[in-house]
């Protein structure tokens, strides 16, 4: 019929698959309370439960990369310059692209839902094993360690008001059916904000439709310019601002599939006393089409000799059969700090986007900074005392940097000393260190609470917002800290409705006290 080319691309943009097993959700990591036989680190990579919770997509390969290193100081306090920061990023580049390759764990699941787990390039060597899914199992390593493993369905351990977050950044697809071809209508060019903007009818809460934006409840995109032309925050008759957050848990009742491991630190590094920071991140890879048709059953060698060393086998050849889809290290590293889709694939290598990170942080600062000021709090972002949030983007990092400098370099206070149970001289972490590289950096001398790792009970979405607070300021005689916005008393006293913390304070299901820690699936 046709003498023209027809690559069926129409099918690519109208894809029916909304959620994919490649969608990584979270990476949790913290030191285990169980120190019998030595220190252990808990890591959990969670992702979409496709095809369903406890059942894995056999085309996927999940990868957890792990690199244990000594705790090092970033640029000193007298190096708070763009040049110093870029030098720091350059040094990271050397470290992550240099010869010191991270060890890794790869997981695939076969048609019988048996998981093949490969441990690669650990100090004790490499080996592989097979595990039943949805069962807690203990893996004995060739060098005598015991690793607890669970690969299966769980309750989603993330708890947050995702709709509130999307309302804060005016993210249209959460609230509207945005046509596939309308690629520019994602984050609309409306100031990002924590407080509703007067007249922002595109995103403000509608009391007549309180479920709008929740659970897939969307509207048609209205005609006309998708912008906002106001000049102030909205205030109700009582003079209260309207919070974009509701404190609701949008993840309640949602399951995930997860890879959860509890690994002896001595298995990860030969020098556990020196290497106190365990940097880790997760990746999802999907089998390439060409390799799908060339697939042969799992190598019988693995099944017959599960403990055999696999040094001799070129696993790079395995990875070449897959395509990297998603990465996960720090919460909000891509959802908030990048509007570039390709950042999803950069993972620990996100230092390539470091200048973009600075510009994006300044863009967010112009939104969140004035909101914080309006509430009578001090912000770390220099917004020239703007009375209302501003939509501003930067093409030059040199212009963005002075605005975001304090936000980038300030040390984030912790609410108390419980994070540092040994009372060691551990420097407070700074945003630029937290987000670049995009890894979960677990400090083994701490409890692993964010940003020294990430514990299940951490309300990271609210802690993320605390970056925009000025941590040198004080409230009621106490320095601002990462939990300040998670304090109900703060909101009770604020001129705002609803009087709620931004995000829920706990998960919808109690976490377990023992491995695998994440709650049973629903």
């Amino acid at each position, binding site marked *: *019929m*046709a*003498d*023209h*080319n*027809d*690559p*069926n*691309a*129409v*099918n*690519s*943009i*109208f894809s*029916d*698959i909304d959620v*994919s097993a490649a969608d990584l959700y979270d990476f949790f990591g913290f030191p285990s309370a169980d120190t019998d036989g030595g220190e252990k680190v808990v890591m959990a990579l969670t992702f979409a439960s496709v095809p369903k919770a406890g059942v894995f997509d056999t*085309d996927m390969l999940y990868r957890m990369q792990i690199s244990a290193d000594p705790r090092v100081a970033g640029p000193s306090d007298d190096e708070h310059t763009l040049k110093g920061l870029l030098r720091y990023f350059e040094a990271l580049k050397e470290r992550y692209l240099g010869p010191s390759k991270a060890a890794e764990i790869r997981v695939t699941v076969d048609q019988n839902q048996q998981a093949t787990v490969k441990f690669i390039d650990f100090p004790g060597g490499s080996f592989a094993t097979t595990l039943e899914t949805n069962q807690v199992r203990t893996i004995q390593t060739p060098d005598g360690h015991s690793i607890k493993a669970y690969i299966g369905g769980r309750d989603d351990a993330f708890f947050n008001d995702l709709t509130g977050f999307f309302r804060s950044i005016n993210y249209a697809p959460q609230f509207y*059916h945005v*046509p*596939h*071809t*309308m*690629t*520019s*209508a994602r984050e609309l060019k409306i100031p990002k904000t924590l407080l509703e903007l007067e007249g922002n009818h595109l995103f403000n809460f509608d009391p007549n439709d309180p479920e709008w934006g929740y659970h897939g409840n969307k509207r*048609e995109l209205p*005609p006309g310019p998708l912008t906002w032309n106001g000049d102030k925050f909205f205030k109700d008759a009582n003079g209260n601002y309207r919070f974009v957050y509701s404190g609701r848990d949008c993840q309640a009742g949602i399951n995930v599939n997860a890879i959860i491991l509890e690994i002896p630190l001595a298995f990860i590094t030969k020098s556990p006393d020196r290497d106190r920071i365990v940097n880790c991140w997760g990746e999802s890879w*999907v*089998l*390439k*089409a*060409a*390799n*799908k*048709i060339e697939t042969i059953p799992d190598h019988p060698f693995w099944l017959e000799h599960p403990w055999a060393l696999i040094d001799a086998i070129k696993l790079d050849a395995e990875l070449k059969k897959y*395509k990297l889809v998603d990465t996960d290290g720090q919460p909000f590293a891509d959802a908030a700090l990048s509007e570039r889709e390709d950042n999803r694939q950069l993972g620990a290598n996100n230092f390539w986007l470091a200048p973009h990170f600075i510009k994006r942080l300044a863009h967010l600062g112009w939104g969140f900074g004035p909101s914080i000021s309006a509430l009578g709090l001090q912000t770390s972002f220099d917004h020239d005392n703007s009375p209302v949030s501003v939509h501003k983007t930067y093409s030059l990092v040199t212009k963005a940097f002075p605005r975001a400098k304090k936000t980038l370099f300030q040390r984030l206070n912790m609410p108390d000393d419980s994070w540092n149970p040994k009372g060691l001289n551990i420097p407070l972490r700074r945003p630029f260190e937290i987000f670049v590289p995009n890894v979960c950096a677990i400090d083994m001398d701490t409890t692993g609470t964010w940003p020294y790792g990430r514990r299940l009970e951490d309300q990271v979405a609210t802690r993320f917002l605390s970056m925009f607070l000025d941590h040198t300021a004080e409230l009621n005689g106490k320095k601002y800290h990462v939990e300040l916005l998670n304090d109900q008393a703060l909101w009770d006293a604020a001129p705002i409705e609803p009087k709620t913390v931004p995000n829920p304070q706990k998960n919808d299901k109690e976490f377990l006290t023992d491995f695998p820690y994440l709650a049973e699936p629903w």
Partner: protein
Amino acid sequence: MLNNPKSDFEIELDRMDQGIAELEDSAWNLPIDRVKITKLAYLQYQRAALTGNLAELTVADNSLDYAIEHLGRDGDLYFLKANIHFKLHRLDDVGLDLEASADLRQSPPGRALKADLDFQQGRYNAARDEYERLIEEERSWDALARLAYFNFKMGDFGEADRLYDEAVDELTAKEMRHYAWVELQRGVVDLTRGDYEKTREHYQRAERAYSGHWLVDEHLAELLGATGESDEAAATYQRVIARVPRPDFQQALGELYLSMGKNAEAKDCLASAETAFIESAERGEVHYYHHLADLYADVFENGAEAVKWAQKDLNLRRNFSTLAAMAWALYRAGEFSKALELMNESLASGVKDARLFYQAGMIHKAFSPNGKAHNYLRMAAAINPNYENFHVHR
């Protein structure tokens, strides 16, 4: 007794049918639900494309008209409409569809389709430049495949292979139909070079990737015809026609029978194809003009009729292919001077194709003994030593 497992084609078709059944009633309700009606039209379009049933495109087009009437200038709706018009060779309409929505025009899929339109209308540089820009922005498999096709037509087979390699590398296990489609394109590239073994490998890979697709059989039938496995080719065409009773496949089978010396069978097939082509044209459809020109020029050797249909196609789109078809029709009509003029315009596009060079050679041979005929025939043989073997008009 064990049932035969369903093929990938059947599984996907079932899924589409189920999706259409779920939407067919509610999607039409007022106030119209944009998501539902778009999805319905998309599924109808997808079904038509999968089954090769062009009449079903009209069903999708009707859904789109209804949706546009109620929803206005929605980019997604016009994108689907543009794709339907493209399949039906209504290129002016494609241009209008793309103009209907600024969002669509600026979106990557809209830009890719505009570049396809440029290619079809002979604006080769514009097409190539846009393909390259799209690839620079995102190395998507479909943009790579588009540029690969461009290079294939321009005779840069190495670059076409490289780009197809890259396109294949972008495709995942979740996109097996697309993968099979790219493998078929790669087979066509090798077929036009006369490399039948490689062609077979590509087609077999396509079948393994996405089982049960008539499109793979249709390509395989051509290969079998080219390699002289004529009985098997005919049987394969018959199976394809039983599933997809399209006149262009009847034409192909008819030409195969001619090559086998089965004139009676050929006559039936070709008459049937001719009737269907004419009926289509009488309904105002334009997508078989090219086939009518070929049929009259190559098979019936009726120059006047060939010129008539080739001119209609040329009026729609002035590209190397329609120019060559017109030149060939004029050759059949004995108008060698005009034939040469148009053939030269076709060759000026830069396209390098064995069939085109063969036709250029024959026209030169008829026009004057200037030696160019020999050159062109040699160029045709250099690309494909077997250029005179059985082939279909794609």
